[in-house]
């Protein structure tokens, strides 16, 4: 083994002392690191800038009136966004109700039952991936044509939440599938080898292990839905509503639509109001994302 080394040593006399001192970080590597930092900085700086801007703009109106009062077209100094906040909560709650069971069941089918050698399963799979990339306005048109007019549900919370369900369903399915796939094959085998049926294996082993991942992905998907204004504008989410939804058949507005409406007003008081509503929306989003992160850290499995 060492004979080569010895031969070389013999040819050159004594072997050279090994060089261990560093040559410093090469310029190219420093440049690379620098550009990484710069790219990161662009994102962070703009985010901070935006946040600071809306908080400063909305500060005069960031008080309890924003959620205790209703929109008022005459007196913006005293107006609030209660109907929009309540509308957002209603719409998102029903979106979750429709898309979570559907998305989770679909992902179980695709991961545990579907035979990838069958062409129809491959078609479904490709379709879901493509659907996740379809612009939200297209779902708005779909909702308007099929759910609002075709099924006759009109301009209601029901129409809005069904449309948003369709919008986030592909994301929920993809996230849930990943959570299911993260459960090691050895757990499935262990369960089946003990005489459990496939259903018992899924219900007692795979789902409990996959739920944290599913929840994290689903919450992130829902927080995308919360910020959507475009499809709901198409569906006739009204921009001026002074009452809270009372059921799925109620007309509604949501925060993004309310913000859109206030921003397009000319008076400065409305701009401040819009900024305050943006802060409220961001707080809701941050809360949901924090919950997702907490779930992921708290329930993540180590196999």
């Amino acid at each position, binding site marked *: 083994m060492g004979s080569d080394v010895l031969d070389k040593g013999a040819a050159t006399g004594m072997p050279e002392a090994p060089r261990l001192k560093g040559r410093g970080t090469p310029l190219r590597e420093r440049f690379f690191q620098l550009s990484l930092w710069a790219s990161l900085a662009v994102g962070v700086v703009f985010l901070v800038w935006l946040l600071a801007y809306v908080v400063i703009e909305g500060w005069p109106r960031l008080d309890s009136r924003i959620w205790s009062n209703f929109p008022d077209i005459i007196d913006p100094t005293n107006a609030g966004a209660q109907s929009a906040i309540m509308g957002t909560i209603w719409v998102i709650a029903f979106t979750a109700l429709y898309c979570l069971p559907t998305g989770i069941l679909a992902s179980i089918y695709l991961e545990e039952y579907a*035979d*990838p*050698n069958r062409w129809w399963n491959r078609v479904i799979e490709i379709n879901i991936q493509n659907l996740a990339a379809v612009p939200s306005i297209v779902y708005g048109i779909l909702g308007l044509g099929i759910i609002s007019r075709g099924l006759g549900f009109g301009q209601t919370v029901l129409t809005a939440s069904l449309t948003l369900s369709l919008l986030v369903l592909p994301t929920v399915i993809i996230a849930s599938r990943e959570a299911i796939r993260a459960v*090691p094959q*050895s*757990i*499935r*085998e*262990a*369960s*089946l*080898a*003990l*005489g*459990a*049926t496939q259903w*018992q294996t899924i219900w*007692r*082993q795979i789902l409990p*292990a996959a739920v944290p991942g599913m929840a994290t992905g689903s919450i992130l998907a829902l927080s995308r839905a919360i910020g959507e204004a475009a499809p709901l504008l198409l569906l006739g989410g009204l921009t001026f509503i002074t009452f809270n939804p009372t059921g799925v058949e109620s007309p509604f507005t949501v925060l993004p639509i309310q913000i859109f409406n206030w921003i397009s007003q000319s008076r400065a008081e409305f701009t401040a109001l819009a900024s305050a509503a943006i802060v409220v929306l961001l707080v809701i989003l941050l809360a949901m994302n924090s919950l997702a992160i907490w779930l992921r850290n708290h329930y993540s*499995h*180590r*196999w």
Partner: protein
Amino acid sequence: MTPPPDSSGGTRIPQVTYHGAPSLAEPVFEVGSLSVFYGAHEAVRDVNMTIGRRQITAMIGPSGCGKSTMIRCFNRMNDLIPGARVVGKIRYHNEDLYGRDVDPIEVRRRIGMVFQKPNPFPKSIYDNIAYGPRVGGFKGNLDDLVEETLTHAALWDEVKDKLKTSALALSGGQQQRLCIARTIAVKPEVILMDEPCSALDPIATMKIEDLMEQLAQEFTIIVVTHNMQQAARVSDRTAFFTADVDDKGERHGRLVEYDETERIFSNPSNQRTEDYISGRFG
């Protein structure tokens, strides 16, 4: 089942070498002309063997010789691999294991399996043991069953104070013994073990081997192992598998020799067995 004659010579299928009268207990499995295909590839070719009741049967052989494929036929775990196909017969107490009306779930309740890497469920020790009985619709006292099972698997003293803690907190060797305990909790007749000690240190391995010998008084055990000393130490009968490479470069596992362990390790009748045992190949 009478073993085929010793030397038919020059046949297409390589003959399995048998010694005169095999000292076989009452048969549990009778394997006849068994081949396993993955898609078009024949991974195991034409295996004939009989597994005796309450004996430890070891399967040894170099990597890729089809031992693991073979052992997974006995509880129909190969059903889970898309494209896997079993040709030939495995009779379990004279019933065709691959018969049309056989439910693989029922098969696996009678024929348990322990895997290469310890794979406890991410649940408590108690729930790991109770899982099999629960899914099988056990109606008795679970607490008693868990204690009885863990005692049986010589694990009770080590874990009795932490039954509610996660099984993943146990050491690798303890996890593997928990997996064995979990398997016997459903009271199977046969326990299949696919390289149960390959992820364990020598002390943990020794404990598992002791446990295997003790369990063999009540259970029929089939064990795949890479460790020839292990086969020699624990098993009553040993099957030596090897892989033939065909002209397309594909490997086909086959059974070369199957006999009493003592015979295999002291006086094998096949040259390839002898080469493998003595470390000249594989």
